[in-house]
């Protein structure tokens, strides 16, 4: 576990002070002119953060016009990848892309992003970032992205529901079985047998499901994301556990196409698997909510996914583009992320800001669990892999397919997909 000691606190503070000082000094304006096009993703908060970074950039580069387009990622990263690849195919690409780990290998393997090792090495701000994040930004030894913010999946729980049921709040190291018993106790039915409060939402998205595999020491793919691991009995065990929460205990509904964020905010679900991005909504709903590390089977590992910035291959005005990326990933931008609460900031110093730590009560857990996370498996055929896994997963959770059959068929399909990927990359 990462713990903040005096030494790391002093170093972080010094780094923040140093970078703030750099930003605060009068900076000579550049004569460079031209345009920079940025494609970012997310909602209003992300657009506001980007516009703040552009305003700072334009103080140094007044003659460079910057335009920003936003993609809400409303239909997942697959469509975003299709959009970006389409831009490159039609030679209408942006200069800078905001993206996420799910797309890294897809973009890097197609050689459409600029390697930025030198740029990263020269930028002192990045020493404040968790090295593990930069490791996941590499493809075949080269760095292609700068991490900006990240999300690890935690259990968000309604403290009022726990209090009402007389259940102690979850502690680090709680087990699968303890979790299951708590979910049962938190499920409430009315006189007609209709469930009015679900103990847990069995997740319906690939990213949210991963902690149940990782904490059992397994995963749907092998460790280097080159083949299926669906025949590992521990995968079946994890899936059986989730299946039983629905069909044996009746503590969770069958996952549908929509997530149950609104039901959690309305107090109709007691526990959900989510990242930090739900915190602003929970705070606005004034829900008495906190977070816990996902329960343990053989370890307490959870999943991490993160956003990042990359530079398009062949981008013009490279000095200005790099300066723009520096702003988008600099201390002010990181502080904006921390204050908005939409993610955990990549910078450690930003993750220690009071605004960030104000809510939920166990907010420091997000950063502290980082050493106990594994990146969401994101091979170059991620979009296909995710669809295959989710298709069989939903069939299992709907009790429409036996777990051994589903694992076997998913394994065959995943390996076919990897064979096709290998052929296309070669």
């Amino acid at each position: 576990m990462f713990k903040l000691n005096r030494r790391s606190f002093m170093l972080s503070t010094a780094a923040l002070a140093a970078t703030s000082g750099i930003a605060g000094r009068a900076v000579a304006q550049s004569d460079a002119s031209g345009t920079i096009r940025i494609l970012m993703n997310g909602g209003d908060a992300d657009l506001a953060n980007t516009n703040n970074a552009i305003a700072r950039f334009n103080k140094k580069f007044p003659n460079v016009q910057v335009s920003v387009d936003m993609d809400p990622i409303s239909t997942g990263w697959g469509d975003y990848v299709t959009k970006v690849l389409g831009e490159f195919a039609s030679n209408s690409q942006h200069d800078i892309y905001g993206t996420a780990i799910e797309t890294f290998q897809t973009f890097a393997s197609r050689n459409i992003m600029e390697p930025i090792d030198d740029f990263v090495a020269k930028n002192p701000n990045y020493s404040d970032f968790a090295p593990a994040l930069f490791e996941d930004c590499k493809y075949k030894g080269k760095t292609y992205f700068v991490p900006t913010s990240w999300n690890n999946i935690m259990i968000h729980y309604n403290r009022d529901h726990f209090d009402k049921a007389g259940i102690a709040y979850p502690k680090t190291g709680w087990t699968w079985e303890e979790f299951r018993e708590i979910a049962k106790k938190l499920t409430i039915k009315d006189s007609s047998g209709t469930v009015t409060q679900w103990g847990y939402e069995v997740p319906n998205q690939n990213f949210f499901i991963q902690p149940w595999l990782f904490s059992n020491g397994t995963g749907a793919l092998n460790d280097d994301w080159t083949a299926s691991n669906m025949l590992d009995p521990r995968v079946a065990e994890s899936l059986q556990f989730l299946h039983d929460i629905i069909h044996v205990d009746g503590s969770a509904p069958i996952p549908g196409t929509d997530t149950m964020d609104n039901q959690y905010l309305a107090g109709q679900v007691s526990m959900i698997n989510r990242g930090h991005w739900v915190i602003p909504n929970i705070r606005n709903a004034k829900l008495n909510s906190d977070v816990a590390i996902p329960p343990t089977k053989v370890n307490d590992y959870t999943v991490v996914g993160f956003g990042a910035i990359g530079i398009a291959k062949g981008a013009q005005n490279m000095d200005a583009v790099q300066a723009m990326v520096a702003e988008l990933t600099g201390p002010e931008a990181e502080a904006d992320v921390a204050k908005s609460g939409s993610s955990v900031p990549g910078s450690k110093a930003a993750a220690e800001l009071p605004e960030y730590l104000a809510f939920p009560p166990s907010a420091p857990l997000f950063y502290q669990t980082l050493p106990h996370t594994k990146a969401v498996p994101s091979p170059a055929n991620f979009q296909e892999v995710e669809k295959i896994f989710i298709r069989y997963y939903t069939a299992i959770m709907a009790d429409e397919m036996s777990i051994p059959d589903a694992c076997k068929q998913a394994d065959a399909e995943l390996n076919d997909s990897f064979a096709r990927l290998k052929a296309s990359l070669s």
Partner: protein
Amino acid sequence: MPRRRALLSERDLLQTMTDTAAPRSELRSQQARAGYLFIFPAMVLYLTFVLAPVIVTVVLSFAYYDPQLGSHWVGFDNFKRFFTDPRSVQIFWNTLRFTAMAVTGNVSVGLLLALALNRAMPGWLLYFFRLAFFLPVIIAAAFVAIVWGYFFQDAGIFNYYLAHLGLPTVRWLTSAQNAMPSIVFMDVWKNTGFFMIIFIAALQGVPRNIMEAAIMDGTSPWRRFWRITLPWISPVVFFAIVYASIGALQVYESIWILTKGGPGDATRSMSINIVEQAFGSFQIGYGASVAVVMTVVILIITGVQLLLSRRLVRY
């Protein structure tokens, strides 16, 4: 015979013009050029937006296509993959099942509504019913599907009332058995108003004198429908069936929003499969081959319907 006289005089006029203004062949070629110029814009649009995409799709179906990683010909590999993939049978069957149920539901309910509204009633009431049944047609399918999604959820409105009535709840969308009928139910609610309108128009064309003669002869309403009304409107019914079939075979958005093709592959249609393969998994060549197969299937089904129409439709 004034009409015949007029035609002759036109011909005479044309002959005179031809003799005096220019040789006959030159005039014809001028007329041909003018004709081509008139159809040129439409042809450009047709070639660009219809024929070219069709040709590109057929070409892509024989290729592995990736603008960044490189493309190459793969012969019939994409088609071989489709016809040997066990999922293809399920997806193909889903599409046919949806088509059969949705076409039957849309056309029959539309016809029943049209028959119910094709009778004497106060004008305002008639317009009220027509508007009420037609309204879902003009609402975006994406929006309709989201609302129906809330109805169909396991903890949704339908199950809420079933539970309060002491009835067992139903897994409308999370059961492979119920998901497709639920989607069809929504599809019929959404689209049957369109067919109702065209059937009302057709019913108003049924000759009143024949119907009155049948009533005076004491023919029962059931017999009048089968012997007079249905044969008279059969070309419109045939059009409705073909139109509904082509739309149903390409069903995408209502399924995508309600179930995303699940659970598992239980409701995945061929259109969804094409989009997922081509634009979700970047298997553009494979997606194109599924699109070609789907086009052939639509052509075959429409062809069969045309053949059957020769026997069943009375023009």
